[in-house]
């Protein structure tokens, strides 16, 4: 918007917009600070700044209240806060990767250009993965068998599934 002059004195540049509501009709008028003060309206720049800051903080808090940790939220594993991480550049424990998932992923993407492991898998973990894969496979077969009303086969498959689940429990693996 081009710079306007004050509607009252016509000399100073207008810096404040006033919304007047007269008889249900809204009217926008532009004044300079000096003329407004004469009319008895005192503008405190500090108060405006404070209001703006508050407004932005509220907005930011709303944004943060989703998956992101609020400022000051702590890792359940080790008590680390994100602010502490930013200072020190070290995470405190394995659980920090979940606690600060959103921040960490943003960071990993910047550093590595990827957020998914593509390297070696520990043998124990690869066993677990294999188990899960087999589980899904048998589950699908089981559904097929039930749909085909082949109950003998279904029973066999259910036993197989139970064996796998027991194996996972024994190893303390993830479900």
């Amino acid at each position, binding site marked *: 918007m081009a710079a306007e002059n004050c509607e009252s004195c016509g000399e100073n540049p207008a810096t404040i917009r006033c919304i007047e509501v007269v008889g249900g009709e809204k009217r926008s008028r532009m004044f300079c600070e000096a003329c407004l003060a004469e009319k008895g309206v005192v503008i405190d720049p500090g108060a405006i700044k404070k209001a703006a800051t508050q407004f932005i903080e509220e907005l930011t808090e709303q944004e943060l209240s989703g998956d992101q940790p609020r400022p000051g939220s702590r890792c359940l594993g080790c008590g680390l806060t994100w602010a502490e991480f930013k200072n020190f550049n070290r995470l405190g424990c394995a659980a920090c990767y979940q606690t600060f998932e959103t921040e960490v992923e943003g960071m990993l993407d910047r550093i*590595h250009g990827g957020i998914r492991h593509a390297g070696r898998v520990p043998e124990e973990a690869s066993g677990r993965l294999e188990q899960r894969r087999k589980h899904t496979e048998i589950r699908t077969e089981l559904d097929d068998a039930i749909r085909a009303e082949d109950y003998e086969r279904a029973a066999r498959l259910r036993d197989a599934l139970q064996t796998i689940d027991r194996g996972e429990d024994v190893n303390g693996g993830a479900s």
Partner: protein
Amino acid sequence: MEPADFALRAGQWLLSSGPNSDVVLSTRVRLARNVEGYAFPSRISPDTKTELENQLCEWIRRADVGVPIQYLNLSGIGTLSRQMLMERHLVSRELVQGEGDRGVAFAQTEFVSIMTNEEDHLRIQIIRPGQTLDGALQQAVEIDRKLEALIPYAYSEQYGYLTACPTNVGTGLRISVMMHLPALVFLDQMDKVFQAASKVGLAVRGFYGEGTKAVGDVIQISNQRTLGQSEAEILQTLANMVPKIVDYERGVRTHLVNDQRMVLEDKIWRAMGALRYARKMTSEETLNHLSAIRLGIDLKLLPGLAMSDVNELFVITQPAHLQAQKGRELSPDDRDVARANLLRDRFKPESN
């Protein structure tokens, strides 16, 4: 073996020669690993740290890493010994400056070292002479597999091996190739090396690693990415880049010999003059002169000198090594005198 015992000898990885060792000093492979159920070392209580260190030692001992190793607890040895281990690249600065129970298991050849309670619970390191990317990675993975059979590692399907610093997560793998590039430095070509390296995601650092400058014309080139790429892909990036730099350096060396021989000889013999006759010499000046000598040996301008002897001096002229040779602490001034004495002795004209 006590640290004082190796005051006059460098590790085997600097004494032996390997592929491309006219330009490539060594290949280092490091794997960062943590143990499930323990906070990372920076947030662990001193008692738990001690308990974990004992447990880690026991695992390392039982894993049978393929070579005889000894373990040193860093809080149990003197400052000078710690510094010596660092000068030999057996431990990191982080471990030396750390607190509490932490240490290093290493093989007598110093090809293998395993740090405990560093930035991560375990840092497995292999250093081999020359360009030995495949061999070094293979050995590191072998040792990792043996440890993995005993140790429940902190691992996630999404992020791979979990590390204290997100810059290491995933494979936990850092491959660093230490290169001696005197000709490229001399003809001001290093910018091209930096640019080429950074274009493919490789970082270039000085002799002592992160944040150090390239004294003695020695640089370390290493991968930055550890997540989203496999170990083989990371290795391949270096395997593609390193030979190119080697060829570049060799080409410039040949050019110097053929077209600027007098300039080159003058540089090398001035270095020799300083090493033979100076009465005081700083570490940095020493490394720069040794670099010229190394170049002279490679270009057959200095017959009668062995490359391994010069490589060794890179290590044993460093502050802690000098003090260990003297058996006492020395002021920086006294060290400069002791260093010059050692060098005068090694380079005295009769010995050529």
